[in-house]
């Protein structure tokens, strides 16, 4: 058992999902000394839940998945420090406090930071992103003096902020550069469904609109947002949500090979021995086919943590995530996806079966190969689907006829919910007929 191997000192920078997952699985399988460094919060919390704290659904402590004594019980040391330098020749970390700490193995899991694209006024007061706990605290401190807010960037954090501010009675202007919300990921029908839903909540959604500049008041606080169309929007607060970038500035003077993130191979190894990188900050040099080199997603962060833990305890393991899956919630509409669904499919390789409820915000899209009819992926809106069944179908390259026949097995909606399998099956028969013609 690997518990008998010599004890090493393992340092993890970052207490987000990837670092924490790595720590937990290393602890389960070894007696190594584990120390987690974070400047953000004393304990691990679920970053994706910050929005619910602002909305009053939860208190911050509810976002912490483990009780505070969990870490001591499991002999995982937590240190509140800000890393300023990784000195690999000496295998030590230097902290802002002046202290240093030696490591045998270093895991970098420092996450992301919000993007800023060089707009005039982007560094004014009450202009910010939402990623860290302190971003939430900052927003909370401005909140009492916000009547009207503008969000720039139509992604997941943008729509979360729209929901958050709306729940506290703020007027929300939502500037989206694209012609429809999140349409680089969502196909047109789903994207349009969300456009309408955003507006139904009373949000001022402005599509094909970009930020030009932010003007300030005499105290240096955001006052007016100017769009590229020349519109002026009164805003006491501006949210910049145009994506995130790996949080790796503190590594610039180290010997680590950096690109947009910390460069890693498929074993999550960096160019330096005994240093690994996982989660949002890791940039895959050879990404798994069909996937991006940086995936700032909760699930992939967790999986990288699980994988690296194996390597660290002596079972060298390649990072090999299974079928792609993801989920989100846009105001009241839940979204789930499994496998691959292209927004502009090549008609030779990928066809779509699309069913939408006549008056509810519900839809299912199945992508399949038009020749073999095998299932390629799925997007559902307002409908819950069973992960295990889809994972199995994708692995088995299940043909569409069987997918449709057994679709009720994938139904994960609560009991008594109206079913849609019959309509979906009708839709499939129709599109099959077209396919043959």
């Amino acid at each position: 058992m690997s518990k008998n191997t010599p004890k090493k000192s393992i340092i993890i920078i970052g207490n987000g999902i990837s670092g924490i997952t790595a720590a937990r699985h290393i602890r389960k399988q070894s007696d190594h000394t584990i120390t987690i460094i974070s400047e953000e919060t004393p304990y691990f919390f679920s970053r994706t839940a910050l929005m619910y704290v602002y909305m009053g659904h939860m208190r911050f402590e509810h976002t912490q998945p483990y009780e505070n004594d969990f870490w001591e019980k499991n002999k995982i040391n937590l240190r509140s420090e800000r890393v300023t330098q990784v000195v690999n020749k000496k295998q030590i970390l230097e902290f802002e406090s002046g202290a240093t700490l030696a490591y045998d193995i270093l895991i970098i899991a420092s996450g992301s930071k919000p993007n800023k694209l060089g707009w005039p006024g982007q560094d004014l007061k009450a202009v910010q992103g939402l990623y860290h706990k302190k971003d939430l605290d900052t927003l909370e401190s401005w909140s009492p003096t916000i009547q009207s807010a503008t969000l720039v960037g139509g992604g997941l954090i943008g729509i979360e902020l729209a929901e958050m501010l709306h729940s506290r009675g703020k007027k929300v202007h939502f500037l989206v550069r694209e012609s429809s919300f999140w349409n680089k990921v969502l196909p047109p029908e789903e994207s349009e469904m969300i456009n309408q839903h955003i507006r139904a909540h009373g949000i001022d959604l402005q599509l094909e609109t970009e930020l030009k500049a932010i003007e300030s008041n005499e105290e240096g606080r955001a006052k007016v947002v100017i769009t590229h169309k020349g519109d002026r929007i009164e805003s006491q607060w501006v949210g910049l949500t145009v994506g995130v970038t790996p949080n790796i500035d503190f590594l610039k003077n180290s010997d680590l090979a950096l690109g947009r993130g910390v460069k890693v191979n498929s074993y999550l190894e960096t160019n330096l021995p005994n240093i690994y990188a996982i989660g949002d900050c890791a940039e895959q040099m050879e990404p798994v086919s069909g996937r991006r080199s940086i995936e700032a997603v909760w699930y992939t962060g967790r999986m990288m943590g699980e994988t690296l833990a194996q390597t660290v305890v002596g079972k060298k393991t390649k990072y090999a995530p299974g079928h792609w899956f993801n989920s989100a919630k846009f105001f009241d509409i839940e979204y789930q996806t499994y496998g691959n669904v292209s927004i502009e499919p090549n008609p030779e390789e990928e066809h779509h079966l699309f069913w939408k409820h006549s008056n509810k915000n519900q839809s299912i899209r199945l992508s399949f190969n038009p020749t073999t009819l095998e299932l390629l992926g799925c997007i559902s809106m307002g409908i819950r689907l069973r992960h295990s069944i889809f994972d199995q179908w994708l692995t088995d390259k299940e043909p569409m006829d069987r997918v449709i026949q057994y679709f009720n097995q994938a139904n994960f909606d609560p009991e008594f919910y109206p079913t849609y399998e019959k309509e979906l099956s009708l839709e499939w028969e129709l599109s099959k007929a077209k396919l043959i013609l």
Partner: protein
Amino acid sequence: MGTLKSKINIMILTQKKGSLILGSSGFLLLLSSLFFSPQDELLLLVASMLMMVSGSLLYFKKVYGSSLAGIKNDGVWFNALTAKGIWGWALGIALTGFYVAIYWFPEVLGFNPNGTSTGLVQVFDPLSYALNGNAATQWFLYGTLYTTAILLFGVKFIWKYRHNRYQIIRTISVMFFQLCFAFLIPEILGKLNPETPYFAKDLKNMWPLNYYFLDQWHLKNMLNSGNLGLFFLTFGLALMFIISPILTYFYGKRWYCSWVCGCGALAETAGDPFRQLSSKKISVWKFERWMIHVVLVFISVTTIAVLWSFLSSNSTMSWFSREQFIGGIVIFILVVMALLFFWKTGALSKDAKYSLLSLGIILIAVLSIQAFSGEKNILFINSYKLQKWYGFGIGAAFSGVLGVGFYPILGSRVWCRFGCPMAAILGLQQRLLSRFRITTNGGQCISCGNCSTYCEMGIDVRAYAQRGENIVRSSCVGCGICSAVCPRGVLKLENDRLENRINSENYPLGNTL
């Protein structure tokens, strides 16, 4: 456009305030009877009830009707009522005071056991005469208010969760069982059978939740009430030993706790705003496990002791002797213990051990009763005194005062979680032998914590969901709110085959490890 919207907002705000004023005026009007004896109790009852009901319905309409369907937990932790603020404490103290008055000082409410009642109790006379033919008691007053609360807050709950059909159907069920089985049918049966002695006529209120079901006086009254009494006795026993185990096997304890039970009905409707206040600490869970087993052992031993005494002094009313009774109980316990011992291993071994320990203690107690007891004294303690302590400690102080009075402080299911012996029995079966579970949807959990926060039973649902494990906990009442509040579609209440119900895997679905 902005001004129109703000005008609408102001209008909604004034209508909200107006409906609140209307409802609370009705409540104050009703309360005024505590200080000024009413001239026309019918008028006062109708007027105050109408004001309370219409005021609250209008308020609920303004709160939930004006927004899109979906989860409505905005500001729950900012509100002084729902986040243990000043209003929460004030309501807690008021409710506790009401329960103390009902149980121990009914005269404060105007109840007069020797003649005509006055005050608040008197106001309910017209309704009581209409339903059961007698003047109102403090218990009739309590039953009416209890049922009204479940119906009113049931409507509110349905409005709040109108997008969720499981919640709608479940809430209609608890409203129906409270109104018909707990309130109307018993009252009307009482009116139709005025000569029969009192016994509990709520068909669904089975032992041990109704802890006096097997008491000497209650058994005698049932046996002296002809076919009606015999029916209630037979049905009560069938519910305990046949119907309940079958339903719990197929659907889990939710068939009772969150679909039928009256305590559950109040917790799910009026108690809903406080569900998030239950503690999720592991230490509290440990305490809960001890507590429910202790309560279970106590109620079982007490009931067996009381039956022993009953059979000792009324041997003619039964077709079996006290020795045969004890023999039967011993055999029953031994069979259950043997089943547990040989059958439950692996993931369930720890729970089975707890159950074996409890049953063992009951067994020893039962044998000691036979060996060391006379007619009335059980192990040198008077069995009726034992029963009386239970009635005071558990029946009144725990289920009423602490259970409901502390809703705004400890959450809505304190009684169900720590004190209810019925929930304990159903829970043990749910954990060991039931098709029910909450399925975790592969690897989709993001550990946000909404499920744990809104679990009224204090289950740390997330701890299972983030590991990709199903939730199979004895305390789960199957309310389905964890599934409703989950933003990623991770949780589903299901009845399915017993195999792999408890699935502890090392990694959630998604990775290829």
